[in-house]
């Protein structure tokens, strides 16, 4: 059974960046799931799903529905109708994206497909890393019910402190389980503002330093996997993972951390 890792947080704090950077150091075989309809994880990893002949869940679901209409069927077979068309298999990692939908209504249906998928998928991987959309609704939906490590990425604002409380409240009420809840500060934290995170009563793992390379890569749409090993953000992510007890698959880690 694979380890289930979820990254969450308010908008723009750096959830996807963290997932993209962390993905490099996790144990194979690993699966990444992008739950954000405003998808960007594939871009950040330099994968063009379209080009690889893969659909996102929203499109696959829409296609199944359209086909069913023609054939007078209902429902779908998760494995044969959807899985093959959405699961990208790469040398480094596998990836599934929720994707944007262009019809009226919420994302409950595509989310439900993933929710059904995840328990089956987890069996095939050592680690499953889920990148959440901004905000809290994904918790209400219980897309991932059994989390091993929940990383909450925060920016330095009073809103962030309140966000931590809200996450805890929702998770408790809707009964999402987790083994660890970890806080991570984004690059905008200073020594002074980091104190806020140390005083919340949750495990604070440290901050991700400002990295001009990340900014440049994101602007150009370049893969974050190509970021140098000694780039500030990379070094921080490794340090954070080690602190959370991860065995990093990187040979000469000790020299850099």
């Amino acid at each position, binding site marked *: 059974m694979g380890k289930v890792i979820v990254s969450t947080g308010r908008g723009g704090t750096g959830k996807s960046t963290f997932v993209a950077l962390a993905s490099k150091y996790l144990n194979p075989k690993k699966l990444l799931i992008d739950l954000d309809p405003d998808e960007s994880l594939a871009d950040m990893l330099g994968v063009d799903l379209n080009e690889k002949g893969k659909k996102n869940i929203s499109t696959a679901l829409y296609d199944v529905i359209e086909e069913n209409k023609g054939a007078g069927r209902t429902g779908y077979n998760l494995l044969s109708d959807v899985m093959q068309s959405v699961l990208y298999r790469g040398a480094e990692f596998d990836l599934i994206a929720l994707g944007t939908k262009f019809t009226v209504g919420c994302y409950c249906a595509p989310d439900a497909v993933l929710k059904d998928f995840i328990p089956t998928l987890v069996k095939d991987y050592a680690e499953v890393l889920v990148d959440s*959309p901004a905000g809290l609704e994904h918790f209400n939906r219980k897309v991932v019910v059994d989390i091993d490590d929940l990383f909450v990425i925060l920016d330095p604002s009073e809103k962030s402190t309140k966000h931590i409380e809200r996450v805890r409240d929702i998770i408790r009420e809707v009964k999402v389980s987790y083994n660890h809840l970890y806080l991570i500060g984004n690059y905008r934290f200073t020594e002074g503002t980091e104190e806020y995170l140390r005083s919340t009563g949750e495990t604070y793992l440290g901050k991700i330093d400002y990295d001009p390379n990340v900014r440049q890569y994101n602007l150009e749409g370049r893969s974050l996997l190509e970021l140098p090993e000694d780039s500030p953000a990379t070094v921080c992510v490794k340090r954070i993972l080690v602190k959370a007890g991860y065995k990093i698959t990187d040979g000469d880690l000790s020299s850099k951390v």
Partner: protein
Amino acid sequence: MARKIVSTGRGGAGKSTFVALISKYLKAPTLLIDLDPDLSLADMLGLDFHKEGKRTVCEALYDVIGKRKSNISPTITTHDLMESLLWSDCLYEEKKFDLISLGTKLTEGCLCAPDEILRKTIPKLAKNYTNMVVDSPAGVEHLNRNIVSDINDLFVLCDPSDKSLKHIPRIKEIIKQVGISYSHFYLVANYECNEEAEKYLQNTGEIYLGKIDYDAKLEEYNLEGKSLLELPEDSPASLSVKRVLTKAGYQIRC
């Protein structure tokens, strides 16, 4: 009928900051609606909803459903009950603006129910105001839900990333497909954009209104939870917002 203004964008682009700042310069009466369950607009305006004796839409809805289960006539729908509560319990009224917050939901399931109540009530609410400003949650789902279907001015806040550029055609496509109408589609750059990033935004073929300059005070206010309404008139963010509004044809209230 109020002019309907919607602020949208990727997470962290500065949607709520933009709404908080423009609220000061719009012609009264103004209604602000915070659609983000991770609510922050009230905080940014220095308001404690609960202290003011107000409830969020999610909180009121939760109570209504509870009551319906016990003793209320089955002929009164949840929506009818909710609509009256929306006016009495959820609408915070003040001199400068009125405010409704969606709020955090602590039960399982999506936010379609509270969103739907707002979607149905917005046209009625709009009749009482000159301006109505909707602060959206991060992402695109609120557009799929078609909560405000006839927008006057849609402000898209952009950060400097390739993702932001991809976000623009994506939301245009959703808007078209779900049948949302708008009169203007405006791009606004956030403080992180440098000249190079601004150039990208100028070349998208959409109307680019300029950027919100970096403002150290604003950052400090957000950290301390101080109201953005108290930001000095000559601080960089205030000046930028006034410039952006003027460019969009607004008459600035001083």
